[in-house]
């Protein structure tokens, strides 16, 4: 075993353990109830899940396509979409503070956010 191989094994181990540590850190359950929906990194709407009635609505993607967002008992998920991979639908409900629901083809992100300032 050469020195290079030993170094490489050590580097791989560090990356692996570091990633596991990051996952444990990221497993914070949701604290707040406010979520925001972003399209192309611009906030298109902010919702308080504890106040929202159960409903389903569509978000259109300007370049063609749509995502159907469902709010149910204070949870939010993408229930249907016409994107090719359907990854966003399979992600399921939004649970973690740090892990958003993402639809890459339609540049759509749903994530928890801080409650807006009272005005």
């Amino acid at each position, binding site marked *: 075993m050469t020195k290079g191989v030993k170094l490489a094994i050590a580097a791989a181990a560090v990356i692996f353990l570091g990633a596991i540590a*990051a996952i444990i850190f990221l497993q914070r359950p949701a604290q707040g109830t406010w979520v925001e929906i972003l399209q192309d990194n611009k906030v298109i709407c902010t919702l308080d899940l504890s106040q929202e009635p159960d409903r389903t609505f569509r978000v259109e993607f300007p370049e063609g396509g749509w995502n159907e967002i469902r709010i149910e008992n204070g949870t939010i998920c993408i229930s249907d979409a016409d994107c090719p991979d359907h990854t966003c639908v*399979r992600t399921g409900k939004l649970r973690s503070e740090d892990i958003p629901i993402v639809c*890459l083809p339609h540049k759509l992100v749903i994530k928890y956010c801080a409650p807006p300032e009272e005005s």
Partner: protein
Amino acid sequence: MKTKRLTELSLLTAAALIAFIIEMRLPDIRIPGVKLGLANIFTVYAVYRFSGKEVFLLLVTRIVLGSLFSSNFSAIIYSLAGGMLCLCGMLLLRKIISESYLWLCSIFGAILHNTGQIGAAVLMTGTPAVLAYYPYLLVSGCIAGLFTGLCAQFVVKRLLNFRKGKTE
């Protein structure tokens, strides 16, 4: 390029595509981007058998045809970004890591592939929030890279025995 090399490369590309199509049939995990990457077995093998230019051709052909077959052409940018970074990394690493540690090279290939994918995703969507998936991709990448690397290692071993005229 000699005909024999060309045939060998085409055969590898075809085999990689078959592995890719078989993998499409496997049930997928809820985390986007997490994949076994069976087709990578052939890329890792080719990295230790062919020149950089030849592996590049193999990989680009595989990615373009693969995304045509899976009718998911929008994902090609992510596959290409990941694939190219993975290839560059492995071509550099093959100078440091000898063939008997091929699995190690494959792990780094997988890590770089995921890095390229996430990088492309952040740039394409302009959404840094996508980075939250990076640790999950790294853990799955290390495991998948080890698996595909060991597969490639077995292939190399068998072929060496075969060339020596031994049969198992």
